[in-house]
């Protein structure tokens, strides 16, 4: 119990160090996560079914208005939070785990496997990633899982590089050498020493990757490559921009503006939060306890 309390206090201390912008970002993200969890009870109207006239302006019960099928926009945005966050976190965790493993392996084993992995990383880094994402998503077909796989395939490179350089530094440390002479197996070293040591950096990277993934998914959905059965924020934007002549009408002022706003706020919050954490965790600023 006191252990949990200690952890909480530690987290609180980190948060207290945040700038105003960092705190605001955190609040924003917590709100959106709550929105995603309680999506179904936050809105009186269904997210997938017509509940009013088409293209109603905000007001009259639909407080963000309705789209061209008369579906409540607030309900869609609440439900879209689920999809967008799911894709974001799913991709980030998958990429960080995969990339982290590859990084540990590459850094610890070294030699020829390391060289091969580094060449592969070099090659992936020079390929422009968005066109490749579009091609893969188009060929794989639209589904939530496919989008996550495509995004994760193209974003494991950064965590792998970060972890690799950390592990290369760590493996020269005396305590690792000692553990090795006591006969610690590779798995033991990875689980007990390397992963705990690289975890904080990986965690910050996960936040950054989440933001990237949400943006990339929105981009793919915007191009019409999203999963039509699960409407993310990007897909709402896609449908709105596909509406002929939407800018000549007033409809864009809610149908397009609100999904755009929430997407921008969330992505910015994630970016600023990872910036804050990077600053707080910077070893040059951190005081060793």
């Amino acid at each position: 119990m006191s252990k949990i309390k200690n952890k909480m206090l530690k987290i609180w201390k980190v948060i207290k160090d945040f700038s105003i912008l960092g705190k605001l970002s955190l609040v924003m993200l917590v709100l959106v996560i709550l929105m995603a969890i309680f999506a179904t009870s936050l809105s009186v109207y269904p997210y997938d079914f017509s509940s009013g006239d088409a293209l109603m302006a905000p007001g009259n019960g639909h407080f963000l208005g309705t789209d061209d099928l008369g579906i409540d926009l607030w309900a869609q945005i609440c439900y879209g939070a689920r999809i967008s966050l799911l894709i974001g976190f799913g991709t980030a965790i998958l990429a960080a785990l995969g990339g982290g493993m590859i990084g540990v392996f590459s850094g610890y084993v070294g030699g020829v496997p390391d060289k091969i992995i580094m060449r592969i990383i070099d090659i992936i880094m020079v390929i422009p990633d968005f066109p490749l994402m579009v091609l893969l998503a188009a060929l794989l077909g639209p589904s939530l899982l496919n989008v996550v796989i495509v995004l994760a395939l193209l974003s494991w490179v950064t965590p792998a590089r970060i972890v690799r350089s950390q592990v290369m530094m760590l493996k020269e440390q005396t305590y690792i050498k000692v553990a090795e002479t006591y006969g610690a197996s590779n798995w033991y070293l990875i689980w007990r020493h390397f992963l705990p040591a690289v975890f904080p950096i990986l965690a910050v990277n996960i936040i950054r990757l989440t933001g990237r993934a949400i943006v990339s998914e929105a981009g793919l959905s915007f191009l019409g490559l999203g999963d039509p059965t699960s409407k993310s924020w990007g897909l709402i934007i896609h449908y709105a921009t596909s509406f002929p002549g939407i800018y000549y009408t007033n409809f864009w002022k809610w149908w397009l503006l609100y999904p755009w706003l929430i997407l921008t706020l969330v992505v910015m919050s994630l970016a600023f939060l990872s910036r804050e954490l990077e600053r707080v965790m910077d070893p040059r600023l951190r005081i060793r306890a």
Partner: protein
Amino acid sequence: MKHNRIMKLFEYGLTIWIIITLNFLLPRLLPGDPFLLLSSDNAENEEIVMTQEQRDYYESYYGLDKSMGEQYVTYIGQLIHGDLGYSIYYKVPVSQIILGRLGWTAFMVVSALAVSTGIGVLLGSVSAWYREKWPDKLLFFQMILLSEIPVFLIGLMILFVFSAWLRIFPLSGAMTPFEDYTSWWDQLSDILNHAFLPIMVLSISQMGGIYLLVRNSMTTVLQKDYLRTAKAKGLSQKRVIFHHALRNALLPVVTRIFLSLGALVGGAILVENVFAYPGLGRLMRECIQVHDYQVVQGIFLVVTIFVLLANFLADTVYKLLDPRVNDSGKV
């Protein structure tokens, strides 16, 4: 020295080969029936059931009955001749469509590269000169903010404000349709009027990175002894900044410009769709909607090879500009 240059060339060659092979393998290995796509080319997605005879006929017509190895050789041979396949929707060779649209994208990307570099270098120098004073702090904050907003969200915002709300700029396209231009100047100004917002959006998205780089590199240079000497000699501030500091600080910027091309192309695909600009990105979306994946693959191939060439050029140019750079990669 020479050995390393050849290694680099080999590495780029390898990357291009992997891209081409990937492009060949992906549609053949992934699940999906090529004839399902072929038969749904009339956008209504109506599926035509084929008899076995028809299937066999089409398989041999497209060479799909041959072994993978044979198909691969044919594919490479076609690529060397510039043949990217045939569009099932537009009913013309893919290379022809891409050539028709390439100009618009290239125009946009190159202009954005120039604008973002110009403004980024200028603001970065200002920031470094006034380091830790208010102009620096203000600029730094704004640039971080701008560099964190994804490019297509900036695009939508600018479109909302300048085109949909204030109606200062046209909403879409690259030229006014059905316009009779009285002079070339009319035509040019119409094109620039349409291109202004997309180029601005792309530039904004790249500016932050260049600004931060220049600011850093300029700050380092400004602390050098030769700068103090230049100031002590009583040279004018302008001469110190442009002649002594900037020339030395710009070296890392050169590579950065070429390397940002990949991100710019990705951004251009999205921005073109925001502004309905008729480049390759727009073409990509159109072809996705009608399942014309031959064209999507062609665009991917062309774009990637251009970006790789630019990266290779960046490596070479950097070495030419800075004799201090040796091949171990240290500056």
